[in-house]
């Protein structure tokens, strides 16, 4: 650590890597859940880095590191305890909770509208239905639709225009 304080990067990296098993053993002894051990290890390494000027080379590095790791482990355990008291794990309650803002009749109305449009579409002449199907429902370009149907672009445009007018009239009449 004294070498790291002097700026020796290789010594520092070696030291940090050697510290990891020691840190893990302290963290586990503190009772930190196994899925959070890495969090405490990383927090302890960051603290060592930020606090490296506070290490006194005359004192034991192991004792210095041990206190830092224990404090970081306690911090995490406190955080988990706070989190545990604030939140309740109840997935069934979440599933069963009614959405008060939801409009229960919206789904039915939507299904009815879809059904009426389907009916109106089936009653259109074949060429108009064909134009609606390719250009609107399948979102094809005029060029693609013309290639598939063997019709001219103008013819498809006219058919679509007439189909939309017919559908609009039908829906307005229906409402």
């Amino acid at each position: 650590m004294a070498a790291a304080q002097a700026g020796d990067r290789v010594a520092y990296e070696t030291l940090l890597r050697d510290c990891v098993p020691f840190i893990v053993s302290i963290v586990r002894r503190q009772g930190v859940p196994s899925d959070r051990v890495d969090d405490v290890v990383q927090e302890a390494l960051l603290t060592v880095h930020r606090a490296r000027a506070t290490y006194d080379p005359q004192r034991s590095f192991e004792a210095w590191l041990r206190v830092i790791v224990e404090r970081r482990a306690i911090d995490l355990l406190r955080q988990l305890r706070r989190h545990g008291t604030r939140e309740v794990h109840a997935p069934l309650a979440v599933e069963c909770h009614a959405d008060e803002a939801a409009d229960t009749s919206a789904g039915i109305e939507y299904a009815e509208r879809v059904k009426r449009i389907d009916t109106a579409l089936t009653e259109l002449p074949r060429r108009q239905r064909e134009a609606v199907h390719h250009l609107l429902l399948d979102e094809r370009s005029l060029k693609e639709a013309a290639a598939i149907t063997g019709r001219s672009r103008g013819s498809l445009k006219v058919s679509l225009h007439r189909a939309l007018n017919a559908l609009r009239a039908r829906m307005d009449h229906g409402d």
Partner: protein
Amino acid sequence: MDDSTDRLIGALSASLRPVRPLPSPALRTLIWLILVAAIAAALAMFANDTAMWHRMTAVPDMWLAVLGSIATMTTAAFAAFELSLPDRSRAWVFLPLPATALWVGASGLGCLRAYVLPGTHVATIEETQDCLLFIVGLSVPLSAALFVMLRRAYSLAPPLTAAMAGLASAAAAATLLNFFHPFDAAATDLAVHAVAVVIVVVAARVVGSRALQNSLPGT
């Protein structure tokens, strides 16, 4: 070791810069006390030292209160520097308690005497306001100097460290107030001193703990 820990070690090693080990808390306390002594010397030039000396030596509770405030200032500053080190016990926070008890107790005795002995000059509201402004005002630069020194360390208990720094500054300001305090501590005066100290400690705890949390020496 998982990949993210491995990457973190690589990043920390790559960003390593040399740092100078901090001096001991005792030495750092001494440096801050020298600053306080320098301010005291400057203030002494404007104070009536003879009158102050007579006041101090007239009754034991006066110099006991000053002794208490000086001891509080010293022990609180030392506790703050100890707490600024991540491996030190948080029990250091109790170090200034006996000195604080002496300070408050001796000041309280003076307050009682002011009522028992007729003819004692009791501070007016205006005078107590001046005391409050003096303690709070002088605590600002003293706290600032202390926080600059504390930020070089890395406290894992910033609120406690900051509160100790506040207590040290307030005690130092209250000690220096004696240069310009030509009356005994009456109940109102003592209450104002206490309020001033509490204001400084609370403000230092709130503002200082943030300053210490953000301190990232050597990164």
